[in-house]
Each structure stands twice: as structure tokens, then as C-alpha cells.
């Protein structure tokens, strides 16, 4: 009876139009399940067995991606309770902690972010130490470096959002350096050179505290309300979009380069 219902369902047009292979207990179906599923096809259908060993991969790349998903999920939930405006931001975080049933989301989001920074460093360490950046994977390492930078920027922009003393001053310290950007920071070397006065024209500096690199970053001459909105959008949409696009390319290249790196035959001592 149960078997009959099961067969009836798995033979129906609806089921077959969604899932196009049998139960994955044969070689053929195990291959098809990966090939015919959009999310699983990020993998090849078969991998070398040593790439399953925890001692080889440390799982760090996969965990970084998992944490990115966790951050996305908790982040979207948090957005529903947060307004990126000076008067409300801090109180919204307080309210989140005190009243909202899903208050723990903020903790998961923050510790997940810290964990992601760590896993991305260790993933990079693993890739370096197994020489997995060597040809043909050179460019994908570069994409990885950009992704690392984006991860740090994601964490940095998110740091401001609770709008407490810890947030505002960490960002102030972190962004003060942009003031000293060569040429385009008003306290940077060369900024005074960008002055028509140098060419014998009127002596008016082109770079001020109100139009230098730091001003563009913060949306104002110091960390204020404009910075909060700017960092909010960078944190919630702009950087995640860029990171997600690059991640897709990253995974695609890993796949195209034959999956995880495997030993070539050129490891003998004599070739040294």
C-alpha cells in the first residue's frame, strides 16, 4: 500500500517534472542528483577522496560560505527591526535585545561575523599551504583576496550600526586614516600639491576636510548620521551584492579548474 502510493507519486508528471532521477543509490542516479540540482551542481559529481579529509581542507572554505548564508539570513531578519537613523538606531538595538522574541539573532549575527573573518583567514592559509594558488588557479586566488577584503569591509561597516560608543569610536579610529590618503586626503602627503597655486595660479587648496577621501567614505566631515545611513546601505546591500557575485565566480572557477587541488606527479625529491 505504502509502496504503491510512493510509486504513484514518483511516477506522476508533477514529481517527474521536478526531480528527474531515481533514488540516488546507483552510480547513475548519484551522478544525476548532483548534475540536475542547481545548488548541488556547484560540486563536480565525483571528487578525490583526500579532499574529504578534514585534516586536508579544515572545511574552512565551506564554513565561510555557510557563515555568509547565516549572516544573510540573520541580517535580513534584523533589518526588519532596525532603522538606520540617529534617533532610533540605538533604541532599536536595545528593543531588539529586550522585546523581540528573535533577539538572539543579533548575537548570532555578530559572532557569526567574527567567526567568518577567522574562517576566511584560515581558508586562505590552507589554500596557501597546499599550494592551491598555483597555475591554473592564479586568478581565483586573486578573487579570493578581494573576497577577503570585502569580508573585512562587511564586518567594518556593520560595526557602526549599533550606534553605541564602541561602534562610533571604532569607526572613527578606523576611518581617520583615510584623512591621510596620499593626494586625496586633506592630511595626506601630496594633498597640498593639488593646488592651482603650484602652477602660479590662485593659491586655493583643492582638497579640504569637507571633500577628501574620508568625507566621501563617511558622507560628512566626521562619523555622523550620514555615515550611519551610508554604512547601513554598504553593509546591507552593496558589499553583499559584490561579494555574492564574486563568490559565484570563485566557486565557478574552482569547479572549472577541476575542483579542489590534487597532487601533481611532480613531487619527487630529485626534481628539487
Amino acid at each position: 500500500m505504502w509502496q504503491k502510493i510512493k510509486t504513484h507519486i514518483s511516477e506522476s508528471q508533477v514529481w517527474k517534472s521536478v526531480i528527474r532521477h531515481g533514488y540516488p543509490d546507483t552510480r547513475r542516479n548519484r551522478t544525476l542528483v548532483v548534475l540536475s540540482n542547481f545548488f548541488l551542481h556547484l560540486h563536480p559529481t565525483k571528487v578525490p577522496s583526500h579532499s574529504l579529509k578534514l585534516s586536508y581542507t579544515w572545511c574552512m572554505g565551506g564554513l565561510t560560505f555557510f557563515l555568509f548564508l547565516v549572516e544573510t539570513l540573520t541580517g535580513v531578519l534584523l533589518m526588519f527591526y532596525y532603522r538606520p537613523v540617529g534617533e532610533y538606531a540605538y533604541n532599536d538595538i536595545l528593543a531588539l535585545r529586550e522585546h523581540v522574541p528573535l533577539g538572539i539573532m543579533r548575537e548570532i549575527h555578530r559572532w557569526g561575523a567574527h567567526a567568518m573573518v577567522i574562517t576566511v583567514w584560515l581558508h586562505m592559509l590552507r589554500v596557501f599551504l597546499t599550494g592551491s594558488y598555483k597555475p591554473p588557479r592564479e586568478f581565483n586566488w586573486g578573487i579570493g583576496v578581494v573576497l577577503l577584503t570585502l569580508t573585512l569591509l562587511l564586518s567594518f561597516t556593520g560595526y557602526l550600526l549599533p550606534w553605541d560608543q564602541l561602534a562610533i569610536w571604532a569607526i572613527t579610529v578606523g576611518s581617520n586614516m583615510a584623512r591621510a590618503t596620499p593626494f586625496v586626503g586633506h592630511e595626506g602627503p601630496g594633498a597640498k600639491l593639488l593646488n592651482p597655486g603650484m602652477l602660479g595660479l590662485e593659491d586655493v587648496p583643492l582638497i579640504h576636510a569637507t571633500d577628501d577621501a574620508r568625507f566621501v567614505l563617511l558622507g560628512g566631515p566626521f562619523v555622523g548620521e550620514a555615515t550611519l545611513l551610508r554604512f547601513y546601505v554598504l553593509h546591507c546591500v552593496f558589499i553583499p551584492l559584490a561579494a555574492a557575485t564574486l563568490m559565484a565566480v570563485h566557486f565557478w572557477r574552482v569547479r572549472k579548474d577541476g575542483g579542489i587541488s590534487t597532487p601533481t606527479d611532480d613531487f619527487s625529491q630529485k626534481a628539487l
Partner: protein
Amino acid sequence: MESVRHLIDWLASPIRFLPLVCVIFFLALRGYRTITRPRVALAILLGAIIFYVLSLLDHNFRHIVAKPDNVPITIMLFLSGFCTYLALRQAAINDERMERGLAPLEKEGSETIFVWPDLVYIEFLAAVLVGILLTIWSIELKAPLEQPASPFRAPNPSKAPWYFLGLQEMLVYFDPWLAGVVFPTLIITGLMSIPYMDMNPRGTGYYSFKQRRMAITLYLFGFLFLWVTLITLGTFFRGPNWNFFGPYEYWDVHKVQPLVNINLSEIIYIKILGTGLPSNWFLREIWGLLFIAFYVFGLPPLLAKTALKNFAAKMGFIRYNVFMLHFLMMMLLPIKMICRWLFNLKYFVAVTEFFFNI
């Protein structure tokens, strides 16, 4: 007990702590086969744990280490150490195998297996496990929330987010345009250029130290010493006014450290020549500028003709110069540190008129 604490506090001062870590780092790499033997590694781990637990008894230590945002740093320290151990352990085994003419361990198990269900299962398990750990962590430890933001009351110390504390620590030695803008840019470009600089064809897909000694040493030096160690220093040992405090020391806002640093121009014109500083900035800074110009532009071609002749020839013109640029810039930090500790050097070049201080 008190004297041990004082000893550790004394040792933790940058001038002793950083050279100490550096020496341990190179000794450990040299003896990587010995140090990664399970018994030795276990002993080190136990030692670290005992040190950590005993230190937690100290009020000041606990106060800093238990700050919510500092917890991940402790986790990172343990994980970085553990992962480095794992990698070097396997490198040691593989190196020994290859000396005996065997293939590395990774080659042994290189039959292919199905992604479904084997890999998917592991991924699922790892995700669930980390998900649970993260949830426990989140239940146990509240995310920090201080007083509402006020642009008029700066806390002391004001620290950047923890992963940027290495850069903030660099501010002790360099001006912001270098520590906050130029060096971070060079870190990124340097990392991106690694695959194009490293022409060693061996070592893909397995752990090995012997076959990639230079590459691995440089990378670990950058990551473990210049990045992780400086973050540790910045987090745990830097207190009010960015003064140094030992791990068991009370963070006293009123601690005063005398500023005795002087510029290279002052050393030359006042201390050595005894003539007083020239008023023209170019004349004043000529020695520092010459030194920096030589360091950046003179050293690479000089080395290419002498000590690094073979290396430069193998690399080719562009590769060699890109490599040297990043390498010399990386070494500028330890060089400046040593000069600071030995000569109280503040700046090599100090053209404050144009914010151009090195």
C-alpha cells in the same frame, strides 16, 4: 607568584615580546619536524591552556580577555596555532615520505568518490555542528552594547575593530598615510601577486615545507607575526593613550610614558654633526630621503647584480621588481621597529610641511 606575573608583564613589552615571538617563530619553523610530533604539540597545547587558565585567576587579565569582542581573538589565536600545527605536521610527514621516495599522503587516497552522499553528508554535518556551536556561543555571550553614541566623549583607549588592530599598532611606528593607506593597499596587491611571483612548480595539492621553504616562511611570517601577533598586542597589551600594559597590569589612565623619539635628521645634524637643523626642509631631510630612495630604488638592482643574481635572473625583470617592492615594504615595519628600540628613531624622513613622514 607575584614575581612571575611581573616577569611576564616585563616580557610582554613590545621591545621584548616581538623579538621573542620572532625568534620562537623561526626556531619553530627550523625544527618543524620536532615541534609537530604529537607529544611535543600536546605539551605546548597543555602549557598554553594551563597558562591561560591560571592567568584567568588574575583580575586584570580576566577583565581584558573576557570582553565580549575579545573572545573571538582568543578563539582565533588557538585556531591559528592549531591549523598551523596541522599543516606543519602533515608537511613533516610528507617531507619525510618524499625523502624516502614515497608519494605524499594526499596522493595515496586519490581515488575518486561520489559527491552524493559522501561530500554532501560531511558538508551538512559541518554546517549543523558550527550552527550549534554558534547558537551556544550566542546564548552564552551577549553582544556588547555600550552607551549611546556621543561624538563628544571619546573612550580611552579608542580602538578600531579587532581585525584592524594590526594596522592601528602600526600607527605607533608610521604615520596614518603609510599604516592606514599605503600598507593595506600593498598587503592586498602583494597577496594578489603571490601566484605570479611563486614560480616553484612543486607543492600543489599536498602539504610540504621542505619543497617550499621560502614561500611558506614568508607567508607565515606575514600572517602569524606581522598580522596575528600585532593584533594580539593591540588587543591585550594596549590600554589608555595606547600605552603598553602587561597582561596582569591595571589599565591606569594616568600612566605616562615619556616621548623621547627623535628624527633621523636630528640624530645626524644635532647628535653627530652638532650643527643644528638646516631651515630648508630638503637639506634637512636629504639623508633620510637618500636612505629611503636607496632602500626602495637602489637595493633591488644592487641585489639583482650580487646576492640575488640567480633569483633575479629566474624571475625576470617585472616579477623580480614587483616581488622586491612588496618584500621591502613588508620588511620596513620590522626595520622601523628595531630602529625605534635601538635609537629611539621617530621618522627617517619628516617633511611635516607636506604630511610626508616615513
